[in-house]
């Protein structure tokens, strides 16, 4: 039978979906790894980038630092981090090494977009906000962030899609997630499983992308027009 036929058979076989190494479980694991790393990146990079954007200072420096996470090959980061923290699981986030590597990967697009978005808010709005008597903090949270909202979501979207795709390499360091199908399938020369796994990753990435595009449009329509 053709490879595509075998892939179809693998994906439609109920046994492929069941149990601790089934597709359902792997999908949930994958979603968990990606979600936690992306949220962590937002929490770490978001406020700093927004504040620096508000001040319109240290943007280049900040972006260069943030970009370390993308300049180094994620695979190399993963192997290095494993040497330090091992392959164990942490509460909530799952495999710690993968979480750290994925967070590093998610930080650059979030930092860049938040900084650029906030820093490029039109001077007229900034002046108006100041004219209304807003404090510096209020200007940022009530004027600049809402105006820059679509760009902030764009950063989140880029980060999320990258992390969904890249979290597969965690399987090399013993994590769960959809990468297991790719790594294990390859090791066992079970190519339908490799392609099936790849399709699932692509599917998840597309869904994540579409959802955030919808959010982007929504916040775009509902935020003040420039």
């Amino acid at each position, binding site marked *: 039978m053709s490879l595509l036929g075998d892939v179809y058979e693998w994906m439609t076989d109920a046994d492929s979906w069941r149990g601790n190494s089934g597709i359902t479980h792997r999908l949930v*694991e994958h979603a968990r790894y990606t979600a936690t790393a992306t949220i962590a990146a937002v929490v770490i990079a978001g406020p700093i980038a927004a504040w620096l954007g508000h001040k319109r200072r240290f943007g280049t420096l900040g972006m260069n630092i943030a970009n370390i996470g993308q300049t180094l090959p994620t695979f190399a980061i993963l192997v290095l981090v*494993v040497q330090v923290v091992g*392959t164990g699981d942490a509460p909530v986030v799952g495999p710690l090494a993968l979480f750290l590597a994925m967070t590093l990967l998610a930080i650059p697009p979030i930092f860049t977009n938040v900084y650029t978005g906030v820093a490029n808010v039109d001077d007229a709005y900034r002046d108006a906000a100041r004219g209304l008597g807003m404090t510096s903090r209020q200007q940022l949270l009530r004027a600049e962030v809402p105006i820059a*909202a679509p760009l902030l979501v764009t950063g989140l979207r880029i980060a999320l899609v990258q992390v969904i795709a890249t979290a597969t390499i965690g399987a090399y360091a013993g994590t769960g997630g959809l990468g297991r199908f790719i790594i294990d399938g390859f090791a066992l020369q079970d190519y339908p499983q490799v392609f099936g796994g790849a399709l699932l990753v692509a599917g998840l990435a597309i869904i994540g992308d579409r959802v955030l595009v919808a959010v982007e449009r929504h916040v775009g329509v509902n935020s003040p027009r420039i």
Partner: protein
Amino acid sequence: MRRRLLYTASLTLLVALGAAACGDDGESSSATTTAAVATTAGGAATTAAAGATLTFKPLDAGGPLTKAALTKGDIQVALVFTSDADIAVNKWILLEDDKKLQPAENLIPAIKKTADSANLRAALDAVSKPLTTAELTELNRQQSQDKSDSAAIAKAWLAKNKLVPYAGTKLTGTLKVGSTNFGEQEIVAELYAQVLESAGAKVDRKFKLGNREVVAPALEKGDIDLYPEYVGSYTSFLNKDATIPTDVAAAVTQLTTLAAAKGVVLGAAAPAEDKNGFVVTSATATKYKLAKTSDLATVKDTLVLGGPPECPQRPYCAIGLNKTYGLTIK
């Protein structure tokens, strides 16, 4: 109003992501729980002969991830190569393969028939005889940890074992000694080369020629006269369908026939083997009194085994542990 919509949208997203995050707890943490329960339950030292369970964690084939996981305690048993330098570096305990699961992989000199002589083999056999797996691991450690030069490592080892100056019958002529392209091979080839030099032969070193696919044909063609081989891997190379015995003598007998067809003769096999083996840290070995692979069956806790992703389907790994050692691998 607009702001409220924005908040609602982002909140929905966060909740969705959060739900995914808390969705499950992963397999290894549940394994830890099982282990904890087993510890409390199995305090009394009544020895169960079989039925011990190991959880499998897919990592790499004796590579950096498996070793890091063992060092960090994420796994307790690791599948690595028996002569790996890190076994000596970290003082890990290589569990004896007492039920003979792994096919023989002893080091053996492969010699081009036209270059062969009884005196040449006597010199090579003198090197092979004292070369055990522990000795080989130590030589590998000197190379990878101390960064010593393979010629210097070989020189010191030969002197220690009183093989140089060579006491046997002298040799004449030039011999081309080859090796494949990894560290252990270069050390062993250097051992051969220096003994042969001490025996009076002129040695032309052709090391790091490539992998077996390059070096084996080079020997057959006579581009080199000899190089260090491994019984099992060489057998598979010459006949990929061959079943490799775990007994060295039987494996060598089979290989001798296969090699003869290619105009290659073999020296005596060294005790040293570079094959798959299970290691534990010395702390784990002490805690559970482990020295042999079969001792794993007496462990009450659920230990975690780290190895290559294909382990569950391979006879040298999970399948063998189950069939030969009666262990359950989950």
